[in-house]
């Protein structure tokens, strides 16, 4: 039982507990905050995996920008608590059964060849401490993957224009 493993287990428990909290919480704001907790723990997973850039993007983009947008819309709509809708009686057991089936399938497919994936990963500390990994990532992003990078900027522009067009009120429309 070494330190990294203990850290991993604690993070795993936090991540899964936050996901369960997201599923069961009645209040939408609590669900959003549970999701932020989940994102934070996954960001630490990224650090453990030697991907500091991805970890920071996770915190700033996901836990920062996206969740602020979610909370803003929740409060704008006043949708913290929705009135209880009538539920189909068979829906929940069927959904849970299907989820268990999905889990079993994924575990079977991923762990069928256990020998290839159970090899321990290389020491993460080596690349975390050096800026070399970041430099390599930046070089790859702006040389080899320059075109996809530019396409994502167009995608974001299109999304922005689309959102403005969608939510714009027509002339003379009330409300």
């Amino acid at each position, binding site marked *: 039982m070494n330190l990294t493993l203990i850290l991993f287990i604690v993070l795993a428990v936090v991540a899964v507990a936050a*996901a369960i909290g*997201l599923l069961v919480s009645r209040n939408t704001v609590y*669900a959003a905050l549970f999701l932020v907790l989940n994102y934070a723990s*996954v960001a630490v997973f990224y650090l453990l995996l030697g991907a500091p850039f*991805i970890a920071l993007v996770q915190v700033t983009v*996901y836990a920062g920008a996206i969740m602020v947008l979610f909370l803003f819309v929740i409060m704008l*709509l006043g*949708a913290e608590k929705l009135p209880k*809708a009538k539920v189909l009686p068979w829906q929940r057991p069927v959904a849970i059964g299907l989820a268990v089936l999905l889990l079993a399938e994924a575990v079977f497919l991923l762990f069928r060849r256990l020998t290839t994936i159970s090899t321990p*990963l290389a020491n993460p500390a080596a690349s975390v401490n050096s800026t070399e990994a970041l430099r390599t990532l930046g070089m790859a992003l702006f040389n080899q993957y320059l075109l996809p990078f530019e396409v994502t900027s167009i995608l974001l522009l299109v999304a922005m224009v689309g959102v403005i067009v969608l939510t714009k009120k027509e002339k003379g429309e009330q409300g």
Partner: protein
Amino acid sequence: MADTIPLSYYLAISVVLFTMGALGVLIRRNPLIVFMSVELMLNSANLAFVAFARSFNALTGQIFVFFVMTVAAAEVAVGLALIVIIFRNKHSIDVDLMNNLKG
């Protein structure tokens, strides 16, 4: 500190989180929470990507995660705008009320 965690542990976490996201899409009736569950699934896929990138010592996985995050940001912006419009038209965002196309 040469202690390491096998790739399979990360994959197990990723699989569990993905299943929970799918379960959230199936059992919740609030479209905002359904949306958050979709984000949870994207996130778990990202975790698997980074773990495999680490395992194969290839940077491509990390770069793909970067692109996935960008697309997720665009998707959230458009999706939340749609929810706002639906709320404006129906004064409710219950998924059961979105049945205009039902025959």
